[in-house]
């Protein structure tokens, strides 16, 4: 399987604290990777290295579609098509839907004058094709603050896909969502795969990760504790394994599954 991104031997220390220890991590083309782990397991540090906010300690290597990246900055990560969708911070609540979709990438002429018609039409198109907004109550002019949590995730994910993101990182996208909203949100995650792109799905909740992920990686105290292809483990097996990791800090060598 070809990889979108491959991280090798990634360590990260902040002063005395070791956040990540010799982590190998990869995301395949058109693969959805579930990243599980407790608070402090190193999930967000790993993501911040992948998005260029942090540099790994010397010795760590990052490959993008097979090419080694010498220095991954935030701007470089964006250019490559790595996009993070944060639940709370993704949208500007007081602005209209079209302004959110085109946030930071407004269509304008060289004088900076906006092309409103094109942005509105494109938003209208995305509403039906990608976001599944069919209610007449929602228009490109609707203010997103009134949208439900699931709809908001849909807007953020659609925006990422629309702007050709190759790898979408979802940071706890279902947190605080109701059952129906979670279902809607998970449909959007599945949509990422349908669009031929890849995703990293970070969550505490294995019940949300298991149905949509192709592969599940468990981080514990800065190291990869286990990883499975979804077919290799049932939901029950995953729960049992996670509690084992939580108790012992890792799996025995013969229990560890490799891919």
């Amino acid at each position: 399987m070809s990889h979108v991104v491959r991280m090798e031997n990634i360590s990260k220390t902040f002063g005395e604290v070791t956040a990540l220890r010799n982590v190998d991590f990869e995301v395949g083309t058109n693969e959805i990777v579930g990243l599980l782990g407790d608070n402090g397991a190193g999930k967000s540090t790993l993501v911040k290295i992948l998005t260029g906010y942090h540099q790994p300690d010397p010795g760590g290597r990052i490959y993008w579609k097979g090419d080694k990246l010498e220095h991954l900055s935030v701007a470089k990560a964006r250019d490559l098509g790595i996009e993070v969708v944060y639940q709370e911070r993704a949208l500007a609540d007081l602005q209209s839907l079209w302004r959110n979709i085109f946030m930071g990438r407004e269509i304008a002429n060289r004088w900076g004058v906006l092309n409103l018609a094109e942005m509105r039409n494109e938003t209208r198109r995305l509403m039906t094709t990608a976001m599944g907004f069919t209610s007449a109550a929602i228009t490109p002019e609707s203010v997103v603050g009134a949208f439900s949590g699931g709809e908001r995730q849909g807007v953020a994910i659609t925006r990422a896909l629309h702007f050709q993101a190759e790898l979408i990182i979802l940071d706890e996208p279902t947190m605080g969502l109701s059952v129906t909203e979670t279902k809607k949100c998970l449909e959007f995650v599945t949509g990422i795969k349908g669009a031929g792109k890849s995703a990293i799905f970070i969550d505490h909740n294995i019940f949300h990760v298991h149905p949509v992920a192709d592969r599940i990686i468990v981080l514990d105290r800065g190291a990869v504790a286990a990883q499975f292809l979804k077919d290799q483990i049932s939901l029950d097996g995953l729960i049992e394994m996670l509690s084992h990791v939580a108790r012992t800090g890792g799996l025995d060598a013969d229990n560890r599954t490799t891919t």
Partner: protein
Amino acid sequence: MNSVAEARPISSAAKRGGVARLARKYAMQIAIVIVLLLIWAFFFWRSPRTFGAYDIYNALMSTTPYYALMAIPLTLVIIAKEIDLSFTSIMAWGMAGYDVVFLLFRETNPSLGVWLGFVACLLAGLFAGLLNGLIVVRLGIPSLVATLGTQFFWRGVVLVVTNAQGLGMTPVKATLLYPALVGRLAGRIPMQFVWMIIFAIVTWFFLNRTKFGAHVYLSGDNTESAKLMGVNVGRTKILTFTIVGVAAAFAGFVVSEGVLFLWPTLGEGYLLNTLASVFLGGTSVFGGTGSIFGTFIAALIIAIINPGIVAAGWTAYWTQLIYGGIIVVSVSLQAVLRRRMA
């Protein structure tokens, strides 16, 4: 034939929906106009002689721009979730620039001195606004504190530079700047009011039809998300402060020209009217929303209250009480309206 007959009710229903939607979208703007009309109607009823004559409107059009010229661009700063308290001193600081340059040419070529002084005034304002932006954005000082500091600082600089001496502005009368800025359009409309309209249209255009304006809204609404999406929040905010700086210097020139004298205390007394115009106009102190149209109308409301009270036969002591009342009630209503719409 049939299809036309079928289409008609649909299109009229759609039109009704469109009107309702427009009414909701512009609820704030409609509300502020209604407030203006109610206040005006009340004063007209109390004193038809004053409010039925042109004089009062001439006076309103002459003096409202003195602070509206700043309130309009200040709306951008507040939408970007910042505040500027220093523009009153920047008015005088700009004119200190005029003062210094004009004096160099007073004996040789006063007209040239006026023009170069005008340019110096605007450049001084630009510099002061830029400095505000840099202090707030690059040093991360909250704008409330930063611009409180620069307000004192520029006032101090003006007093030192001018030695607290005023300057006659009569040489301006000999240049085109006089009719262009404070003359009369068609012999009736004060030019400063025309500039107020020009400022409003240009600022509206930048706010609503350009990338810069879109970024002003986003910077105030959700700074972090705007940054993550590649909006240069810092540059956007610096630009809004800079625009206010230039506008304040311009307003300072217009005011001084209006009275044909430059006072070193120029600008004192404009702070509250200017800020009140922005907030009364529906711009949220929390950033992310606001309208130029609202600020424009609110500036007129603020302007009409004082002469209205006097014409209605009350003492001017009532002015501040009524200002306060109208502002608190309007802003509360806006908050309720906004919550309803969300």
